């Protein structure tokens, strides 16, 4: 039904080609930005959704950078409802060049696999990781990135830990390459685990300390109670703890960078305010110029409401075309990110935000000129009044 008006709406849109092209480009830029920034926001607000609800992270109450003594491990393990506990120390190593950064953690192999069953490694490689003092395993994504194979020696220069001789140059032997149990975990297989025992013996200081404890629990519904029980156990001690779900821990870690949601929304607010002014002005001008033409349409029998709908449809077409092009570019850009990059994706949530923004923008910029068009008095408009 409305399709028959499309040539009329389309031709109205292209009445001033240059103006429409520039407005369209501005809309594309705005929605490209919206797509990218909301994808980042999505990562921060929901990017850790896949992390198990049945895993807790116990860190020092002050900060996760403050280490905790290994003697706490059996005490945590003794808390009712805890299934297994592993410990993890951030290694902070650089491979060849600082630009090659990827995370490495020193772990107890057996405990790590008990706590993180999401990582899949062959039994032979698992045994090799346990038995090789300077053994290391790498995620498939990471191994593919650098072309590593089993048996390779991986030199890492740690910016945190020194060897007993004061050197920062560590050498690890790659004894295994692990995958994720599903696509989400496989995509994140871009980190490296190091054998803690060798690491702890070889480091010059901080012996017997762990960074954080990962606590696997039997029942996710008991998470809150268990977290409180662990923290209560170490309350008023030298090593007070803060235990939270792994998801909260990850988000908290990312938020060290700042309140990303606020920053993203502030930037987008500024961008959309500008676009609102620009597109609103374009639409208002386009309708003002066409006042006699709109009056002629009314002469021919187009009702006030039809004229209002035509102008609104034109604004919608402009915003949707610009918006879809911008979002398509954002989708291409995020899809083209390297595999080891955080999983920034223009997912359904981002598209929903973009589509509702297109509609809201079209309404905001289209409604005032549409109402003006609706109220045009034929006789006055034709007389140039």
């Amino acid at each position, binding site marked *: 039904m409305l399709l028959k*008006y499309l040539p009329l709406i389309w031709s109205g849109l292209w*009445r001033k080609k240059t103006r429409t092209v520039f407005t369209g480009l501005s809309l594309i830029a705005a929605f490209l930005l919206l797509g990218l920034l909301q994808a980042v926001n999505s990562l921060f607000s929901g990017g850790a959704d896949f992390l198990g609800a049945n895993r807790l992270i116990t860190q020092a109450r002050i900060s996760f950078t403050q280490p905790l003594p290994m003697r706490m491990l059996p005490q945590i393990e003794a808390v009712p409802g805890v299934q297994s506990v592993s410990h993890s120390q951030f290694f902070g190593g650089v491979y060849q060049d600082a630009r090659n950064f990827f995370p490495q953690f020193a772990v107890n192999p057996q405990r790590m696999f008990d706590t993180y069953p999401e990582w899949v490694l062959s039994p032979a490689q698992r045994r090799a990781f346990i038995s090789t003092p300077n053994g290391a395993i790498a995620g498939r994504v990471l191994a593919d990135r650098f072309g590593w194979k089993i048996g390779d020696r991986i030199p890492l220069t740690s910016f945190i830990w020194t060897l007993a001789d004061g050197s920062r140059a560590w050498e690890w032997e790659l004894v295994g390459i692990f995958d994720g149990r599903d696509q989400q975990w496989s995509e994140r297989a871009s980190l490296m685990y190091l054998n803690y025992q060798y690491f702890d013996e070889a480091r010059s200081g901080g012996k017997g300390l762990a960074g954080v404890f990962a606590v696997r629990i039997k029942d996710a519904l008991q998470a809150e109670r268990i977290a409180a029980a662990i923290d209560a156990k170490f309350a008023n001690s030298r090593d007070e703890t803060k235990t939270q779900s792994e998801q909260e821990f990850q988000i908290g870690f990312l938020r060290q960078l700042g309140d990303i949601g606020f920053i993203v929304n502030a930037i987008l607010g500024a961008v959309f305010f500008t676009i609102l002014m620009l597109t609103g002005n374009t639409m208002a001008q386009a309708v003002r110029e066409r006042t006699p033409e709109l009056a*002629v*349409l009314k002469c*021919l*029998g*187009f*009702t006030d409401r039809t004229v209002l709908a035509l102008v609104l449809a034109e604004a919608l077409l402009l915003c949707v075309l610009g918006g879809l092009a911008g979002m398509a570019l954002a989708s291409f850009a995020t899809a083209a990110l390297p595999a080891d990059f955080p999983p920034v994706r223009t997912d359904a949530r981002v598209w929903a935000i973009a589509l509702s923004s297109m509609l809201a923008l079209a309404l905001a910029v289209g409604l005032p000129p549409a109402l003006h068009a609706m109220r045009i008095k*034929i006789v006055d408009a034709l007389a140039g009044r």
Partner: protein
Amino acid sequence: MSALVEIHGLTKVYERGKQRIEVLHGIELDIEQGDFVALMGPSGSGKTTLLNLIGGLDSPTAGELKVGGQRIDALAADALAAWRASTVGFIFQSYNLMPVLSAQRNVELPLLLTEMSARERSRRAAIALDLVGLADRAGHKPNELSGGQQQRVAIARALVSDPLLLICDEPTGDLDRKTADEVLTLLQQLNQRFGKTIVMVTHDPKAAEYATHTVHLDKGTLVSADALHAIGVH
């Protein structure tokens, strides 16, 4: 048999701030079906206002206006728009074509308001363009046509929905004499061959010669003998 257009005591008052301007004073006029009426008069005499009222573009302040037996002075805005779409074709001095649409699309515009299929709209627009001698210019945009050709497209647009009444406001005002004569001849043919009732406002006595009746207005009142003839007083 009653006239196609029946006007009784038609009055139009404009209010500009506190000022009250009575443009038409109780006009009495009948226009028979198949008439070609020229409305003449000096500037400010109210001829365009009368034309706008007959075409349903404006509403009278008082009086009665019937077209084809239907009172249009009391119609609500939407009903009046629908009435215009089905009953009246408009031709303006400055053509008022959509500059971004081809001649064919311009002519199809009134048909968008009907339930016709795209193919039928296209067929009828082609016939209307053929009728005004512009079948070969269907794909041209208004700026690719001469003034006379643009006015012919406007006439085709006015005709395409087969209206009872053609309303022409100075249709030759922007044209040279030769082109004006061609357009007026076309209007005359539409009147004589197809029985279209035409009401035309003009300043040009030569243009009025093409009409079957001339009505003179002065200061909002009918003045000429021809006008008396038009309302049936012999």
